[in-house]
């Protein structure tokens, strides 16, 4: 059997600049953590439908209970282990380039089968 030829290569994160690469600093954050600019990560979660609209103006840098629920929802939705923490699987996924369509649509929830 001949050796397979790999024509394409998927590069590790460090070889190019992710738009959301700064989010790497939140690695291992969990409930109770306070990290500067975590409010930016909360905006990301809001944008993709994991945090409610009315909370947008009050985002803080505290990893609170509501954010933990949002992380749980995110992990469940994207097929990641649900830990409620910003583990490496989760931060890698958050930093990946992606489609701009919300994972949890505004107002109405998606129907999953």
């Amino acid at each position, binding site marked *: 059997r001949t050796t397979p030829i790999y*024509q*394409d*290569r*998927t*590069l590790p994160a460090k*070889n*190019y*600049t*992710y*738009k*959301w690469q700064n989010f790497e600093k939140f690695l291992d954050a969990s409930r109770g953590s306070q990290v500067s600019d975590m409010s930016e990560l909360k905006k990301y979660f809001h944008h993709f439908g994991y945090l409610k609209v009315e909370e947008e103006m009050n985002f803080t840098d505290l990893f609170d209970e509501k954010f933990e629920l949002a992380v749980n929802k995110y992990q*469940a*939705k*994207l*097929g990641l282990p649900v830990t409620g923490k910003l583990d490496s699987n989760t931060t890698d*996924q958050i930093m*990946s*380039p*992606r*489609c*701009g*369509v919300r*994972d949890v*649509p505004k*107002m*109405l*929830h*998606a*129907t*999953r*089968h």
Partner: protein
Amino acid sequence: YAFFGGQPRWDRSIPMTLTYAFSPANLITSLSLQDIRDACKRAFGHWASVIPVRFVETDDYGFADIKIGFYRGDHGDEEAFDGVLGILGHAFSPESGRFHLDAAETWAVDFQVEKSDEAIDLESVATHEIGHLLGLAHTSVKEAVMYPSLKPREKKSDLKLDDIRGIQALYGSNPNFSIQNFSESDLSSNY
């Protein structure tokens, strides 16, 4: 697989034909129009092979069902693009037909030609966005086309069972498509 709220789909008699056109004013110059057209044609073809829907390109942009364009930053739909990587594109649920790609990306149709570490496969993103245009939301299945993320230099344009089951729940099956044959070939290639 998942649907948008209310499970919208194109409400026309089956089999249906949907037309698509490229915005003459919103293209990129890093790829030829022919390369863009070919990549999108292949992307539409993936979906057309499994559902009774035909996609036909038209020059009449104003009257096309699906309108494709490359845009930068705030482009008027309250979903601004954000420059290189980050958000790659977006499309709207039926029957909007709006299909937008971020002009700031390094779009590629052949990774042997486009060597950039930040190159994004146009056919893969187009296949994903067409799924939205037809009524599919994001899935949790990582291998599926409708999973929301795509890494640079990654190609993911072949539909997986999750994509096929979802889209066929909305439109039924293309009479020339056999899920049993697909499953067998899929398993065979995996093996």
